[in-house]
């Protein structure tokens, strides 16, 4: 999930996105002074970077970036992985 794009042409190098992200996903490149996605897997799709960017240069998708288990298997209507034989 998560942050998909930062438009570097629109970007005004204000640094708000890197500052705002609670998960430390975005960092500023020291030489170009532009933001880059440093730790994509930590993105939680909270949309703060997109909302706070003053020139709408950032696009975030809501789908999850890392694998997170569901409490049950979608296709085995009454079980979770915990119930499968040999599990743990």
């Amino acid at each position, binding site marked *: 999930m998560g942050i998909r794009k930062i438009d570097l042409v629109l970007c005004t190098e204000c640094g708000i996105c890197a500052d705002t992200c609670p998960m430390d996903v975005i960092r500023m490149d020291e030489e170009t002074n532009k933001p880059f996605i440093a730790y994509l897997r930590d993105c939680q*799709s909270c*949309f703060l970077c997109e909302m706070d960017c003053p020139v709408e240069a950032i696009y975030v998708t809501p789908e*999850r970036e890392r694998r*997170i*288990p*569901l409490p049950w298997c979608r296709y085995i209507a009454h079980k*979770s992985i*915990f119930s499968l034989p040999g599990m743990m």
Partner: protein
Amino acid sequence: MSALEHIKSRVLETGVLVVGGGLAGAFAALKAKEAGSDNVMLVTKGKLGKDSISTFGAGVFRATFPEDDKEADFRKYALSKSYGAGLLYHEEWLNIFLDEDYERILDMERWGVKWEKTADGKFERKAARRKILMCMFHGPQMMKAMAKKVRTSDIEVVENTVITDLLTKNGKPGERVMGAVGFNGRTGEFNAFKAKATIMAAGGCGFKARFAGHRFQTGEAYAAAYRVQAELGQFEMGEILHTTSTQFDTQGLNMFLALGGKFVNSRGERFMPDYDPELEDYSSMPGVSEAAAMEVRGGRGPIYLDMTHFTPEDVQKLRTVVPIPTKIMERAGVMVGDKIMKKMEWAPAFYGTIAMCGGILTNTKCETSLPGFYACGDAMARYGGVYAFPGAAISGARAGRFAAEYARDSEEPEIDEGQVERLKKFAFAPSEREIGIEPDHIIIELLEALVPYEVTIISRGDRLEKAIREVERIRDEEVPLLYATDPHYLRLANETKSMVLVAEMYLRSRLLRKDSRTSCVREDYPYTDNINWLKWTRLKKENGKMKLWTVDIPVDKYKIKPERERYLYPVFEAAKKRGIEWG
């Protein structure tokens, strides 16, 4: 590893140290200042105003107003069989809560938080979950205003710093707390904080599971308190077993329900009226999660949330009060224009100790079992009714006030150099290894042990024990091999360590309780037993091990008492009615 070869260090001193910059921490710092503390310092893991779950509060805040019937509200929170921490309420705290929450709303308004008002300027209140009236604020604007107030109130703010441990008198556990240590998650700089009073407001532990906005909350508060042998408790009472879309994470369920959203199973049937005849879809979150889990057990999964019948006015209200969930639904193709296009597949989002659960034990002054050490918000052990935003605001305010009082009269704190060195080594250990396991590997294994519904929604002793064995294995075999290549991963490694410890607290507490209550449901003990189990669980580190015990709740001294009775926990009654087998 060159980033960590030269670890810079510094020592900072203050009067009242607040660890955590969410609503509880902000209140603690501001009220400590109001109480006359000259030196107040707030340390937070990211950027103040953005880095806590308070930023993602989806717009609702309960409050009992002066004109409301306090006793009726008391009974609503305390005596319902389907919520209120299952009748394990704390009378003194609940009374304080009902007395002080309105004042906190006024504080927040004074400090710049915008509340929804009616046409004639009064606070607008809407009935949501449990038909309790809620005030509405504008999402992230709340913490933005609180952060601004903190920054302009002569409070020193230290950001991007994760606190890993507490400092104690003579460097020994079980003694007065004299500060904390931590490091900057971006630069790797090590910081020691010396303080007269320390307030732990660093939130709960969401285990980086599903649900939006809590992946930064990983339980450092509990881990640090545990290691200095403070008392903790009630970790089985994770009442906020939130639910979310299976496709994406979204908050805002309170609003969705307030506007008429309904849950249906795979047959398209509404099932909540059977599981909670009184509240139906407005049931408590664990009520919905337990019902959904039971429906899945009966082969009627998956579960959906249906909002396709919302009017354009309803959708507009969503835009104002919950802007982020609105955006998420638009991106996912669920909301188009002023219409909800399809029902969303829905499931419990394992929520750990966020918003409501156990934590560090405190009295009503927010004092913990160690002098000079206070806890508030999600870091604190919470009780029926005293939790989430109102709990954070009220406990934060009290912690700030009483910590300031303590700091005024207390002895000067002293840092034990040996302890600082030990704790620095402990925090930086993952960066000293050449090879090892990265944090994500452990996080997924941990979630696979915690999230399945047979472990943490409808559990059973043997499955809890299986999960505990797995957590012990992770703790003993894998955590010692955690490694980090830079300060960001070092923070993740420390977060992972905390999560493994909190998982153990959580599972062992569930195993200890031998009855079924809201959010702590066991097939092998399917009765709510208010004859033998009006107890609170407790835990603490003793002789290197996690010790657990129970204490009796002093119900005989309560003005409003629960019935001393035993009954089949409602979800099992409903399952019988719906022809679903369990046991």
